[in-house]
């Protein structure tokens, strides 16, 4: 059975864990350092002097790089999973990472880490691979299958990105399980009492609330809600911002330009936060680059006042979840606390208030370590899937989709086709027809969310039904079946009913990687082979060369070009020719040097162009307006006739 062992993985914002079923009990597998928690931090070691690829490190050793080489380390990447460029940009305001410069709207954003660029699923894949290795070392045999947990409120793109990360790490993801539901499974093992359970899960970067009904081993989720942008990170960032402002004001030092020092303050903020869960006061004492010391006391009362607006944001989703489940606080038999942030006393007070617990002589459950309970539940689900034990054979999890699924109809309104909190798998069939005689294609836009207008919802995919037999408008009857599977991921199939022809579907996921891209990012492939890395570096440098060449090609049409001297233009032409000559060769170093030379030669041109852009911005539009105009172009109307509903 060793070959077919399935592990359960909690891929967390801050920490990740792997667990398995030892007989009837789930157990966390420790890493080589003996710790159960693997910090979800990935770092790139320095480039080896003799060439070759830099080693990727994960976990505690990577955390050190955060302070020494912040530009080569990344954390909290879960917040970027399945997100588009503009979302990632706004998210990155709070983090010290940089987007790769050549990222374009419509593709999966890549993060610049040292000399390499990674998509968020790739970074997560490194964390997963570390957990896989820990498990393999523990069992002494390979691990190929896993259950991975995701926040219940994750949308389709975020779920798909997590599955992609598993594949890149060499894992077959048998099931994505929602974190609060996993926690309920872990608790449900030893208390098979029937009743209604509320799971309040405040983690590092996400918040979920799920309400479940437990009956004879069946865990039936009634409703779920949450915020994929809310967690301990927000508290850390708040404390960090306050400290940085105070340091700036009192000591005249702007630490924001020293990423390493910012990380040191962030670490102190996190330590203060943790201390305040048990102590009444915490102290900041940080040595500044100019030799001064920043010293400050934070009483718990002040801390609680500061974080109140953050915690209050969890109340709305809790109330909505109760309303959706059709229950009142009094109907909740047990409340379960999950996630490291539920150690904060103020969070516990809020939970008590929301579910009327102490008023009814109840206390929330936190007997299982809130950092580990999700991984333990993932292991239970892994046990259910492998059918390995009698205990888990009695259990079954029936989860729901957190967000409504809809289709954009004429005028941009959303027609809901699957309501939120529907038990998954869930399906629905819709019929479409054509609006123009002889039309052979129909375009359909699928969105996820609760807002009335498609533009306010999350765009999942646009797809074209092609190959409809030409008929008069309104005559074709195209049956489209939408199915959300047990992982919460959407599948679509279509058939033209009158001709019985299977319509061909061409899908453009709005966010996410194609199958081929995922395939090319499987880390085992370039992890062990030196030449793969060299190839990757070569491709990246060549892409960079092509980008700059394309820009130079267009340069003469820019007004700034006229301001260059003849010598400057000649120098650019020479550097351009040199790069053209080497860019398709295999000499990575030559390409790199030629690229840098061309970049150098065009520096003054770039400055002139920037001045031009700035002055035109001042002339009329603000930068915000300019970027707005740009994004309007991106969402230009679809070329094909819109779908019409029948």
């Amino acid at each position, binding site marked *: 059975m060793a070959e*077919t062992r399935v592990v359960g993985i909690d891929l967390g914002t801050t920490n990740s864990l792997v667990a398995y079923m030892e007989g009837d009990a789930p157990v966390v597998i420790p890493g080589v350092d003996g710790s159960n928690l693997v910090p979800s931090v990935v770092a790139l070691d320095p480039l080896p002097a003799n060439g070759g690829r830099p080693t990727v490190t994960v976990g505690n050793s990577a955390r050190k790089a955060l302070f020494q080489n912040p530009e080569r380390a990344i954390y909290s990447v879960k917040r970027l999973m399945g997100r588009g460029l503009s979302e990632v940009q706004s998210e990155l305001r709070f983090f010290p990472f940089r987007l790769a410069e050549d990222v374009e709207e419509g593709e999966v954003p890549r993060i610049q880490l040292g000399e390499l660029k990674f998509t968020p699923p790739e970074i997560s894949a490194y964390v997963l691979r570390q957990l896989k290795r820990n498990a393999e070392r523990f069992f002494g045999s390979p691990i190929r299958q896993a259950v991975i947990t995701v926040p219940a409120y994750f949308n*389709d793109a975020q779920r*798909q990105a997590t599955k992609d990360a598993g594949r890149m790490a060499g894992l077959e993801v*048998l*099931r994505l399980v929602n974190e609060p539901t996993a926690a309920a499974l872990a608790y449900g093992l030893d208390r098979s009492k029937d009743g209604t359970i509320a799971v309040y899960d405040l983690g590092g970067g996400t918040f979920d609330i799920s309400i479940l009904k437990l*009956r*004879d081993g*069946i865990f*039936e989720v009634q409703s779920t809600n949450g915020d994929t942008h809310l967690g301990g990170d927000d508290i850390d960032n708040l404390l960090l911002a306050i400290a940085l402002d105070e340091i700036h004001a009192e000591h005249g030092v702007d630490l924001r330009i020293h990423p390493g020092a910012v990380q040191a303050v962030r670490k102190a903020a996190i330590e203060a936060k943790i201390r305040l869960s048990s102590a009444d006061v915490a102290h900041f004492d940080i040595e500044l680059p100019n030799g001064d010391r920043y010293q400050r006391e934070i009483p718990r009362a002040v801390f609680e006042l500061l974080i109140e607006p953050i915690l209050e944001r969890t109340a709305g989703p809790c109330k909505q979840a109760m309303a959706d489940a059709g229950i009142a606080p009094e109907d909740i038999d047990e409340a379960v606390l999950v996630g490291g942030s539920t150690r904060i006393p103020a969070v516990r007070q809020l939970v008590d208030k929301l579910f009327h617990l102490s008023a009814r002589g109840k206390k929330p459950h936190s007997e299982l370590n809130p950092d580990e309970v999700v991984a333990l539940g993932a292991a239970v*689900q892994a046990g*259910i*899937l*492998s*059918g390995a034990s009698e205990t888990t054979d009695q259990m*079954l*999890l*029936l989860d729901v989709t957190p967000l409504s699924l809809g*289709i954009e*109809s*004429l005028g941009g*309104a959303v*027609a*809901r*086709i699957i309501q939120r909190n*529907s*038990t*998954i*798998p*869930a*399906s*629905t069939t*819709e019929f479409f027809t054509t609006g123009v005689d002889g039309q052979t294609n129909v375009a359909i836009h699928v969105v996820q969310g609760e807002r009335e207008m498609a533009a306010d919802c999350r765009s*999942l*995919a646009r*797809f074209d039904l092609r190959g409809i037999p030409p008929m008069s408008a309104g005559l074709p009857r195209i049956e489209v*079946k939408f*199915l*959300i*599977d*047990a992982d919460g*991921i*959407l*599948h*679509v*199939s*279509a058939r033209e009913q009158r001709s019985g022809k*299977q319509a061909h*579907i061409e*899908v453009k*996921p709005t966010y*996410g990687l194609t199958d081929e891209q995922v395939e090319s990012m499987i880390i085992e492939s370039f992890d062990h082979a030196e030449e793969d890395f060299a190839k990757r570096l070569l491709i990246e440098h060549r892409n960079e060369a092509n980008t700059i060449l394309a820009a130079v090609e267009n340069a003469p049409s820019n007004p700034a070009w006229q301001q260059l001297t003849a010598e400057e233009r000649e120098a650019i032409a020479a550097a351009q020719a040199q790069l053209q000559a080497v860019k398709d060769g295999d000499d990575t170093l030559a390409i790199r040097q030629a690229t840098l030379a061309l970049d150098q030669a065009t520096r003054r041109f770039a400055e002139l162009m920037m001045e031009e852009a700035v002055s035109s911005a001042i002339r009329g539009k603000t930068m915000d307006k300019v970027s707005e105009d740009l994004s309007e172009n991106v969402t230009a109307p679809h070329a094909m006739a819109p779908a*019409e*509903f*029948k």
Partner: protein
Amino acid sequence: MLKILDSAIPVACWSCSVAHNESTLFCPNCSKIQPPPGGDYFSVFGLEPRLHLDLDILEREFHRLSRKLHPDRFARAGENEKQWSLADTALLNDAYRTLKDPLRRTQYLLKLHGAEIGEEHAGRDPQKDAKDPVRVLPDLLEEVFDLNMQLEELRTERKAGAADPQLTVALEAARSKFEGLLKVVDDDLHAQWRVWDAGSESERRAAQNRMVALLDQRRYLSHLLRDVTETLGAE
């Protein structure tokens, strides 16, 4: 994210080749899972199509079938069985969701019997059907008209900064009145259920027409109440 699913229905069991009734989830001969059957939602649970259902029995049956059909039980099965488990469980869940809710159940059953119901459907303006009080609530035109006026007034006053407390009181009174009306509609609906389940063919037809009208009224009233609640709550 998206792929094409196969939905061919064999007449004989794919595993043991014994021919079976199309609307079965498991082969009566070898107990293997079968592709989604063609019957209606009631037949998924082996129930007669009736409006009065014992929800406890429905839930127990839902759990029993879930234990056997759920994709978790087929994680290591062949590709076909996996796909059928997914499709069958989706059908089971869709059926349970529809039948456990009294309104959805009524709409579903009436539609099976050919009734045209102004259901909120993809591509239709969900408000449009409900915005026709002349057809839906001819006896209450004046009240509805007044209520909409008051709602508009309150929104305008709120925007301007000062809302007349008298208006809020009037709206709250109207809300209780319309909640009462909703209750009357629901009671009537339940009475029609009994007729539909037990009556003769002609009684059944009359009950069906009555229910279609009641469902329209109900939808209109709930939209109205939602508007009132939202406006009152948006302080």
